[in-house]
């Protein structure tokens, strides 16, 4: 309870709340968001945090928001309940999203506000005076928010201990002192203590993770042992997690000199028989396009995780978009098969990374794991990842005993499925030629007819023959609903919430979340579009890239497909989707 005595009982208990924290880069907004996220998870709530930062180390406006709810959520709450502002810009920007009962807490050592329900505390001055370093002001502000929300004091301290214990005793003590300063200041303002309470939830089995971490874990558990990448926002964390996770499992992680090297490093390692992956974002993907084509032509299994951000060119490195899809579907010069698979939740990031590794090796081709900034970097509660459920399927990799029984080994043997059994170099008694040039079954360069035709059909045919092996889509909502919604990746969260809101308005919708985006699974898409009168395809790009791929795949449904697009760098809010759907229905 702290030294401040018993607060009055809260006026209102929140079951779904949103805290927005804004300031300059370096003010520690992400730290406060992380602390609150950890706290809410510990009281059994579902948590979703999002970030809005600039591509610079310090300075510039940065904000983060934490949503906590008794119900599962993977979307930003339409209205902010608590705004924590470290500067005036953050107060002005954030107050536009504030709900009618929303409260602003701000650092009055920096600026003053005259808005209703706003309370200023001189966090920087107080902490500077008593701890010696004003940088701990964010922890003091976290303390003030904890009083406003009637948060449990030992648990509030506990998450600070959890987060800062690795930084050493001094940093921990200073943070705890700053927390106390913030709490004491808040108890001094009669309106703050017990202003609100937060309902406890039952989601105690959940973990808190981000897509990038889930992909890294999925890679390790899925048998991935060689990774090479080049730092790029918002994909870098995949490499950083793997640098930590992979070495104990005899894996190798390399930071390459550029993305050209990264993709070719993994091609070399896959050729040698390792399970491999690289990760990147738009600009790096453009460079990797050359190598992915080589993997396609030479039938080398590589997984490329693309964490999409705003494009084209360097675009907006820290902002969200889903605009690489069209490029990926038509990736590279010439024609070669590739699968594009798209997880929609953090758990699916784990599961589909395993699946991507399996598919690449089984079908011997490049697989794109399509992600987006919000999915990669926003923290969300998720069911825990389970290694025991994972299946490692390597396809037809031949070992010495099998080879001993063979008359001949052809690396590109023509088969019914188009898949040629593979023997990695180093296998006694056998060797092979692998090439991205057109080749015959032996891997010798060839321009012969009909060999060229047979080899094209062998490779391209995989996209048809693999259809039943590719990740199936998810369906949500009543099967008889006449309004359809299609969305992939992180749009699943806002779409689920929009479905709830529409339900409240007695508008029934059915949501199809495809998890294989290319090739388009016509056997899924066609019956779905048949079942609805109209279908909104929700995506973060200008031209409606997935809608266009659908129109190409099932042209007979052309009239039903309506694009709902957003390309301002921010994720959809559920209310925007509700407006798009009710406005157009």
């Amino acid at each position, binding site marked *: 309870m702290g030294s401040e005595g018993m607060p009055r009982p809260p006026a209102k208990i929140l079951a779904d709340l949103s805290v927005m924290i804004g300031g300059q880069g370096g003010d520690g907004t992400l730290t406060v968001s992380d602390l609150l996220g950890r706290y809410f998870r510990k009281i059994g709530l579902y948590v979703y945090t999002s970030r809005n930062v600039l591509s610079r180390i310090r300075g510039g406006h940065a904000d983060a928001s934490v949503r906590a709810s008794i119900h599962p959520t993977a979307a930003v709450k339409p209205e902010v309940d608590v705004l924590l502002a470290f500067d005036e810009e953050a107060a002005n920007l954030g107050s536009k999203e504030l709900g009618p009962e929303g409260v602003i807490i701000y650092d009055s050592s920096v600026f003053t506000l005259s808005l209703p329900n706003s309370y200023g505390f001189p966090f920087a001055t107080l902490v500077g005076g008593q701890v010696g370093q004003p940088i701990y002001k964010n922890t003091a502000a976290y303390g003030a928010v904890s009083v406003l929300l009637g948060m449990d004091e030992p648990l509030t301290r506990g998450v600070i201990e959890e987060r800062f214990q690795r930084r050493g005793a001094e940093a921990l003590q200073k943070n705890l002192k700053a927390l106390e300063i913030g709490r004491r200041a808040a108890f001094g303002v009669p309106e703050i203590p017990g202003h609100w309470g937060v309902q406890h939830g039952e989601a105690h089995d959940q*973990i808190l993770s981000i897509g990038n971490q889930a992909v890294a874990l999925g890679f390790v558990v899925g048998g991935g042992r060689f990774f090479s990448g080049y730092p790029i926002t918002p994909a870098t964390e995949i490499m950083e997690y793997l640098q930590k996770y992979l070495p104990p499992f005899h894996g190798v992680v390399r930071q390459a000199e550029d993305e050209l090297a990264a993709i070719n490093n993994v091609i*070399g390692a896959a050729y040698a028989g390792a399970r491999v992956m690289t990760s990147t974002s738009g600009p790096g993907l453009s460079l990797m396009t050359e190598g992915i084509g080589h993997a396609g032509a030479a039938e080398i299994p590589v997984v490329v995780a693309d964490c999409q951000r705003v494009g084209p060119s360097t675009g907006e490195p820290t902002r969200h978009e889903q605009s690489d899809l069209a490029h990926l579907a038509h990736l590279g010069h010439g024609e070669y098969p590739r699968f594009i698979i798209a997880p929609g939740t953090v758990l699916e990031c784990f599961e589909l990374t395993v699946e991507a590794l399996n598919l690449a090796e089984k079908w011997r081709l490049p697989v794109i794991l399509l992600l987006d900034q919000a999915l990669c970097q926003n923290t969300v509660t998720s069911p825990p990842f389970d290694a025991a459920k994972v299946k490692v399927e390597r396809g037809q990799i031949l070992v010495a005993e099998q080879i001993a029984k063979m008359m001949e080994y052809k690396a590109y043997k023509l088969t019914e499925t188009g898949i040629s059994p593979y023997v990695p170099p180093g296998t*006694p008694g056998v060797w092979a030629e692998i090439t991205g040039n057109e080749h015959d079954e032996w891997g010798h360069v060839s321009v012969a007819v009909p060999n060229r035709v047979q080899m094209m059909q062998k490779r391209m045919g995989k996209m048809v023959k693999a259809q039943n092996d590719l990740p199936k889509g998810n369906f949500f909502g009543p099967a008889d609903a006449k309004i359809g919604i299609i969305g992939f990746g992180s749009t699943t969260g806002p779409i689920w919430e929009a479905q709830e809101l529409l339900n409240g308005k007695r508008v029934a919708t059915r949501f199809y979340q495809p998890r294989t985006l290319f090739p388009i699974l016509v056997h899924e898409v066609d019956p779905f579009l048949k079942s609805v009168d109209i279908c909104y395809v929700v995506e973060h790009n200008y031209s409606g890239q997935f809608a266009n791929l659908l129109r190409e795949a099932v042209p007979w449904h052309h009239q039903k497909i309506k694009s709902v697009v957003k390309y301002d760098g921010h994720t959809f809010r559920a209310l925007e989707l509700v407006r798009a759907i009710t406005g157009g229905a």
Partner: protein
Amino acid sequence: MVQSAKPVQPIWCPGCGDFGVLAAVKKAANELKIPQHELALVGGIGCSGSIHNFLEVNGIHALHGRLLAQALGVKLANPQLTVVAAGGDGDGYAIGMGHFIHAFKKNASIVYLVMNNETYGLTKGQASPTSRIGFEGNIEHPFDAILTSLSIPVPNFIARTFSGDPRMMTAILIEALQFTRAHRGFAFIEDLSPCVTYNDTYKLWREKVQDVSKLQGYDPTDRQVMFRLCQETREKGKIPIGVMHRPSESETEEVGLEKVLLPDDLGPARADISIEGNLAGYTKLLRAVT
């Protein structure tokens, strides 16, 4: 024994310098008794990059300029393989320059064989990064890969050979293979390999090559000495050949790329990746996420 891919007829013009390299590779592999299945040749794009098609070993034909990046992946995934990357001067010093320089600092135990003919032969004789001024209208200064590599203070093996001197070439290639097979680091050999069709330099080069080991003060463990000797030889209108840097035994690699793997580690390609074999480790890893 199972029938593997048979070598095909070389695409090279009769008399091409690359035949000398092919013969040296066969001879060296034979002499060192490297099992065919343990040798992996990574070829670049261009006439020289097709060399792996003419040998009974594992071959992978990489993208133009990317052979070193692929060779690195092969070596790190299976350190037991003997990895030789082979390509031309355009492949290595133009489109592949970034990977070329980084290969020295990465210092993985790969032999990199550049067949330098000072032209783009396969596309019919354009100027390359090593072409002399005036060749096909070239007005850029020729690039000297040996001087560049000598300026990188990493314990690499560095040499230049000449296809017209097969004995020296074979001896140097054997030494380079031994160096990498002992996991001592990167071995770079630039072979002067005339293009008989577009830049027939046999006669010219035979007159100009200078065996550096015959020069006074020759000391391949001392980069500064070798840099000076190479420069002086060039200034006299000669082309230095021979071993340019041979790290002394005390100059062993401490931080090179393969050191990420323990000596007894099978490497990523041969690690046990079964769920059963790793379940305890995986469970611990996943439980740490809260």
